[in-house]
């Protein structure tokens, strides 16, 4: 049956692009959407997660556990960073760009000096499967499932748990939350840690599929950035649909015209979308809902 392999292939390509965008931008979206901080060190949290995942996996830990380690390490580093530097930068988006860029320089160079120019990776698990005449990597499907699961998990966290309610309240009306007795500084710290942890998770999930060098964050940062900004402040009303739209554009252009058009097309799409919806997708959707 010709239809199934063809549509599976399309779905696979879209799922790939979508998973990449969602997983890599989740952390950035939480931090930017919730706290107004532009975290240019996002790529370095991804690198941190990837490196920790690879080292623990090579030391013998099963991969899911290793990925969890990577995410946790990144979260801890994030919380430390929040305490020392980020705390002073809330709602100063332009200053946060510079400070986090500085942190990114320090991190990349320090890793280069301490751990050398590259790190041995782990292989991609789960092998491949045959659909029609072509074989597909099963791990890529796992990545897509993870992306969906991630969105679901975050939704549950922010909309169904106490922490989520408090976090959203703190971000929307910090003074009110404080008046009601919430320790806002702790909430900010935890939220930043969550964002960093999500970045580490992205690193851990993609570590088996990529080369690991200190500058590996750079390959994620532009695309996660544009997805977050196109999406606007809300991760569910903004970043997720933005990732879907951009994924479709990128996958389609790459399939029809090659990687160059895919890259350029993505960037041009960003320009156009921002022009048409100046507050990002979430602002547009919110206005439309009224």
């Amino acid at each position, binding site marked *: 049956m010709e239809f199934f392999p063809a549509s599976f292939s399309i779905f696979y390509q879209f799922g790939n692009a979508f998973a990449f965008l969602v997983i890599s931008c989740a952390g950035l979206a939480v931090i930017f959407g919730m706290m107004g901080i*532009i975290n240019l060190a996002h790529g370095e949290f991804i690198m941190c997660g990837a490196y920790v995942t690879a080292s623990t996996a090579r030391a013998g830990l099963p991969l899911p556990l290793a990925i969890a380690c990577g995410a946790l390490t990144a979260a801890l580093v994030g919380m430390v960073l929040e305490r020392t*530097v980020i705390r*002073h*930068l809330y709602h*100063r*988006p*332009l*200053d946060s*760009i*510079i*400070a986090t*860029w*500085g*942190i*990114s*320089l*320090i*991190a*990349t*160079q*320090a890793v*280069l*000096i301490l751990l050398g120019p590259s790190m041995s990776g782990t292989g991609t698990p789960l092998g491949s499967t045959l659909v029609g005449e072509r074989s597909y990597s099963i791990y890529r499907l796992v990545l897509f499932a993870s992306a969906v699961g991630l969105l679901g998990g975050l939704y549950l966290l922010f909309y169904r748990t106490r922490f989520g309610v408090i976090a959203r309240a703190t971000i929307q009306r910090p003074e009110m939350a404080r008046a009601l007795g919430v320790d806002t500084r702790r909430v900010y710290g935890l939220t930043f840690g969550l964002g960093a942890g999500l970045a580490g998770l992205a690193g851990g999930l993609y570590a088996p599929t990529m080369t690991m060098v200190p500058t590996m964050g*750079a390959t994620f*940062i*532009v695309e996660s*950035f*544009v997805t977050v*900004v*196109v999406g606007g402040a809300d991760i569910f009303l903004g970043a997720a649909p933005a990732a879907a739209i951009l994924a479709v554009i990128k996958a389609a252009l790459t399939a029809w015209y090659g990687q*160059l058009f895919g*890259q*350029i097309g993505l*960037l*041009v799409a*960003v*320009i156009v979308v*921002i*022009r048409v919806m*100046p507050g*990002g997708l979430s602002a547009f959707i919110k206005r439309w809902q009224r």
Partner: protein
Amino acid sequence: MNPIELPDASEAPARRGLKLWLSRLEGPQTMGRGPAFWAVVVLAVLAALSYPAFANDYVVGNAAYFFVWTFMAMGLGVVWGYCGALSFGQTAFFGLAGYAYGVITINIGSAFGATWLALLLAVALGGVFALLIGYFMFYGRIKGVFVGIVTLSVTLVLETFMAQTAGPQWRIGDARLNGFNGMSGMPPLTVPWPGGDIMLYSGTALYYVLLGMVVLCYLGLRMLLNAPFGNVLVAIRENPERAEMLGYDIRLYQMLAFGLGGALAGLSGALYTAWGQYITPSSMGLTAAALPIVWVAVGGRRDITATLLGCLLVIAGFQSLTIYGSQYALVVMGALLVFTVLVTPDGLVFTAINRMGRLFKRVRR
């Protein structure tokens, strides 16, 4: 634009023409006024003029290289510091003008002052392109961090596109764009002279030319920023809605400021190409795009003097760090950025000048 008469602080009689513009060298938007300040400026220029007598040709050429970048920093200072729009894509105009200079001079040569024409055209191209992007953004009511994203996307699109123009079909006239490897073979700025053209390679002659340009540009920007145009820009930065309610079309002003910033970035680009006879797409990439922001942030974006001095300081400092600090150079640079943001968010140079100014005031009393 009708010249709006600003009430002069000292209530002197209204001035016209040249006197009006000269009076704008000092004003509320720029730091430094009074004879003491201008004495320091004159001393600095004299020191710069006599510098080649004390330093060898390499050091002077290196200083000329630093001057090349100051225009881009000043342009970003206008757009970001005075108008409040963080443009992440100044390198797009830099690269465009650089390539334009290369293409034009490779095609028409360097005789009879053609390189200067090419320089002018390249700057104009940068400015026009910036006006277009500015129109697209500001008339579309894009603001805040979105300006940064759009401009970043523009410069990355240009970089990605130019990096793959390696094939022989990518040529404009005689000039092959040559993709990622970069375009070379263009002549430096050439002064037509009876008896033999003077080629301004990196060296003392180029140093003087660039010094003159920097001084002119600096003074010109001071005058412009203290004029009503500059006042409106600052008003837009502080509170755009209020500025609009006062009747100013903020989109026009933002677009014009952005065009000016783009033209200045283009000037840097063309001069860089003329200085090194080389231009490459990586000068429009992510790292290159972040550098002007670093210079302006560390120097101080709210004031053109601080931006200029800060840019020179940071570029020279980073180069020295790279030469003498080897691997740790990048770590120190990162630490410097974090330090600046946390301790002196208005910029190192800006804060320093402010403190010195206050010190002098106290001394005078």
